[in-house]
């Protein structure tokens, strides 16, 4: 009924090698859960007064906390890189600023010292703050299994609230971002009930960049959270913007379209109608600002 005091009983194991992870995944099946920062997981275990029999800590595996960046190859983040590490990284702040902005809005500073990017992805909350940035930077997840690696676009990873396309024998090893478009300008627009620290009522991540191929001369990428079962891009809106010569009316129409695509449910944070209207207003605000700084 109510959250319990302290954590329910479980066995903690720390993985030293990928092989150990695969073996344990095979042995223990659904009774084992992978953990990194634990900031979402522990709260859920308290709330539900239940959890897996075993928690396997994989944040110490080789490469899990590494950050690699090159202008031509892009950015690769180990799944256990913390949100504060992302925020403090100069290259990420320069080339992928929306990731840093989004990271800075998650919970609070203490929490972000533990919370990992991989955890935020695997938790698959519809309101995940990192999601819009992951979507607009075209993040590819690197999933490790006994058979080797596979890559999956992040949008395909989220199947529903709390549901992910992780196979039974896999774990999320890293997240890769291609180099951002030349001249890109981006911003994460988040609306919470408090100025800082809240979950998103609506969050819109947006990237704009010059594209001479389009009538607009620009192209936008828009990622939205909290207003559908999973975070989502709005390709129809992005295409509409690319195909029109930009004006206030066009931006307004695009924002209206984004609102129409959003499908929030009534929740404790806000009414569904308000959330829809905020998708429109934040989208419009973002488009205006980013268009303004690209002009």
């Amino acid at each position: 009924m109510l959250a319990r005091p302290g954590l329910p009983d479980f066995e903690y194991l720390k993985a030293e090698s990928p092989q150990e992870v695969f073996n344990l995944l095979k042995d223990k099946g659904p009774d084992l859960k992978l953990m990194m920062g634990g900031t979402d997981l522990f709260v859920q275990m308290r709330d539900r007064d239940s959890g897996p029999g075993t928690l396997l800590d994989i944040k110490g595996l080789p490469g899990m906390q590494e950050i690699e960046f090159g202008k031509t190859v892009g950015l690769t983040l180990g799944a256990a890189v913390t949100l504060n590490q992302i925020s403090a990284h100069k290259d990420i702040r320069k080339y992928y600023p929306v990731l840093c902005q989004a990271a800075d809005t998650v919970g609070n500073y203490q929490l972000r010292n533990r919370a990992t990017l991989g955890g935020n992805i695997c938790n698959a909350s519809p309101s995940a703050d990192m999601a819009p940035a992951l979507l607009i930077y075209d993040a590819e997840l690197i999933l490790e299994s006994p058979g080797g690696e596979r890559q999956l676009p992040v949008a395909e990873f989220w199947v529903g609230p709390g549901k992910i396309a992780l196979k039974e024998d896999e774990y999320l090893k890293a997240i890769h971002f291609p180099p951002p478009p030349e001249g890109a300008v981006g911003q994460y627009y988040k609306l919470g009930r408090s100025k800082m620290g809240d979950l998103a009522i609506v969050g819109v991540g947006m990237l704009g960049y010059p594209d001479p191929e389009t009538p607009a001369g620009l192209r936008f990428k828009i990622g939205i959270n909290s207003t559908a079962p999973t975070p989502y891009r709005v390709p129809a809106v992005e295409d509409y913007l690319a195909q029109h010569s930009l004006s206030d009316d066009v931006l307004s129409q695009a924002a209206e379209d984004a609102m129409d695509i959003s499908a929030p449910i009534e929740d404790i944070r806000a009414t569904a109608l308000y959330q829809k209207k905020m998708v429109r207003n934040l989208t419009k605000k973002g488009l205006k600002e980013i268009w303004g700084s690209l002009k």
Partner: protein
Amino acid sequence: MENHAITLIVNGQEEALLVPSNMTLLHALRDGLGLTGTKNGCEAGECGACTVLVDGEPVNSCLVLAVELDGREITTIEGLSSNGKLTPLQQAFADLNAVQCGYCTPGMLMAGTALLRRNPNPTVEDIQKALVGNLCRCTGYQRIIDAIMEASRNGGTR
């Protein structure tokens, strides 16, 4: 389930502990070591009353397992002042009445100490960003901001 033998370096002192898997750092400090200055306010990482430093960085001790921290350095409120000498931040909290009921104070001081170490000259906004996870129901926070600014002028955390 079985207990894990770990060693924590708490306020400079090596402490050997036997902890079950589900014991958080908060409970290891309070129940295992009797370091009750670190407070339990929500056990959900929302109030910051349990903030301590792990290797110098602030964390919510309610959301970290003790077993994860074998060999790590922990600093709690009890480790801030030494030989009866307060740090400039503690002194500023006392001088400016940034304390009322005192329950959030240890967490505020630990988060504030960490902030001043990484940013010796914070702005009001820097302080708000760093302490948004530390709830206080008494003071209205202004004195806490003032105290951190004051400590910043008086040499920070040393």
